[in-house]
């Protein structure tokens, strides 16, 4: 059994390596897309292991438009850019905000949605979102997100930051009372936590955060640096689905407001 498994793994590796030239550059008949899967409602895994969510549907419809065959590859957030650079997949459609720091390692397409960040706290907490109000508080964020960067830079000296590998883990510790506040994307937090049974006792506090210095110019698709042909294909496809109503159709399934952040479809 063991030997078989091992041999099978070797054979599979060899076969994949053997499939060499088939993914010839610039053609893009097939595209491998990296997604996350623990970030509802944008991406989540159901009990049977199937992926669903806004990111997933957008990825699929963009592939339709490009006319390519797409494979979705699940990857955890911590490794999502390294794995792109390591060619595990060719593009990331995982609610990744376009930031200067990331743009040093990857190239981004135009945005495909834009939502503000917000704090949440227990309903009886009465925290004030200011340097004084947050002094000494424990704030949970997902590691290496724009929210992590923002809280680290702006409040890092006064708050205790707890960094989680997934947003879901942060919610779990919020319920357990291990953090005083959460900072995350407002839509994710509303759908993934506040509107669920566990998140009952929690609510949004403070203003929307949209400062482009931290929160970027919206969420885009990341490709390896220099893959301009693929980036252009995605840009054209994003423009096309915005214009012909396919984007609106998907977004209406998930949200009762405009998730693109500005009017779309002329």
């Amino acid at each position, binding site marked *: *059994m*063991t030997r078989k*498994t*091992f041999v099978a793994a070797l054979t599979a590796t060899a076969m*994949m*390596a053997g*499939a060499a030239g088939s*993914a010839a550059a610039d053609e893009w008949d097939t595209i491998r897309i990296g997604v996350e899967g623990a970030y509802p409602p944008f991406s989540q895994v159901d009990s049977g292991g199937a992926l669903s969510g806004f990111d997933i549907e957008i990825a699929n419809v963009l592939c339709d438009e490009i006319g390519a065959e797409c494979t979705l590859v699940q990857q955890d957030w911590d*490794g999502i850019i390294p794995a792109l650079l*390591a060619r595990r997949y060719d593009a990331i459609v995982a609610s990744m905000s376009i930031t200067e720091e990331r743009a040093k390692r990857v190239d981004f397409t135009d945005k495909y949605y834009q939502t503000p960040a917000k704090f949440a706290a227990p309903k009886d907490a009465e925290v004030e979102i200011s340097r004084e109000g947050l002094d000494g508080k424990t704030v949970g964020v997902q590691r290496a997100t724009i929210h992590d960067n923002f809280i680290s830079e702006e409040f890092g000296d006064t708050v205790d930051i707890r960094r989680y590998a997934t947003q879901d883990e942060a919610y779990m510790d919020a319920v357990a009372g291990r953090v005083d506040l959460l900072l995350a994307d407002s839509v994710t937090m509303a759908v993934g936590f506040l509107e669920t049974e566990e998140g009952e006792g929690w609510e949004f506090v403070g203003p929307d955060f949209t400062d482009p210095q931290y929160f970027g110019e919206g969420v885009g698709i990341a490709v390896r640096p220099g893959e301009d042909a693929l980036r252009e294909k995605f840009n054209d496809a994003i423009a096309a689905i915005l214009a012909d109503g396919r984007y609106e159709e998907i977004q209406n399934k998930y949200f009762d407001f405009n998730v693109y952040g500005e009017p779309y479809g002329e």
Partner: protein
Amino acid sequence: MQNAIDFMPFILTGALVTVQLALASVALAIVLGMLGATAKLSGSLALRSVAGVYTTVIRGIPDLVLMLLIFYGGQIAVNEIGHSLGLAYIEIDPFTAGTLTIGFIFGAYMTESFRGGILAVPRGEIEAGRAFGMSAVLVFRRITLPQMVRHALPSFGNNWLVLVKTTALVSVIGLQDMVFRAGQAGGSTRQPFTFYLVVALIYLLITAVSQVALSKAERRFNVGVRTE
């Protein structure tokens, strides 16, 4: 709120992954351990140094650090090399990464076990074998190996028990072993303690079964040795 019992098949599937991973890793560790022990006992300074660095570095760094390094860093390295050779993407899934990492780590521990085992074989017997005109391979197969196994078995058994526990760390790189699944089941039922306890008991069961098997093996390999 779902019933904890409903999740048991889910956990048991994970237990199977744990066992498969442990067996695949130990197979790799044995191969690396034999190579390492041979290198450490060889006449070549270069081989001895490589083996020395391997065992020292591996035993000086935590498993979890090595695992993250190999899973994230190894993926980049493999594909940089692969790409420069004109190959397409080479997938390192968590099972392969886990097997490679744990096998690689315990290869270092096995190197020490096997080295000790080989050294415990009396030189005179090896010389006698050579005097009979046996080839080096034949000496190894007929004289060194059977006795080495006997001497190395206790520390091999120890390494195996530690290895089984180390497999829990693969849940961190996303392999759906029983620890990973206990986390998921615990999250959706709000009964994490129950599931982690079940997983702990399965580990104890694996340990107990291993101990019985190992002591049987020890008795078998000691048949030729008089104890009184």
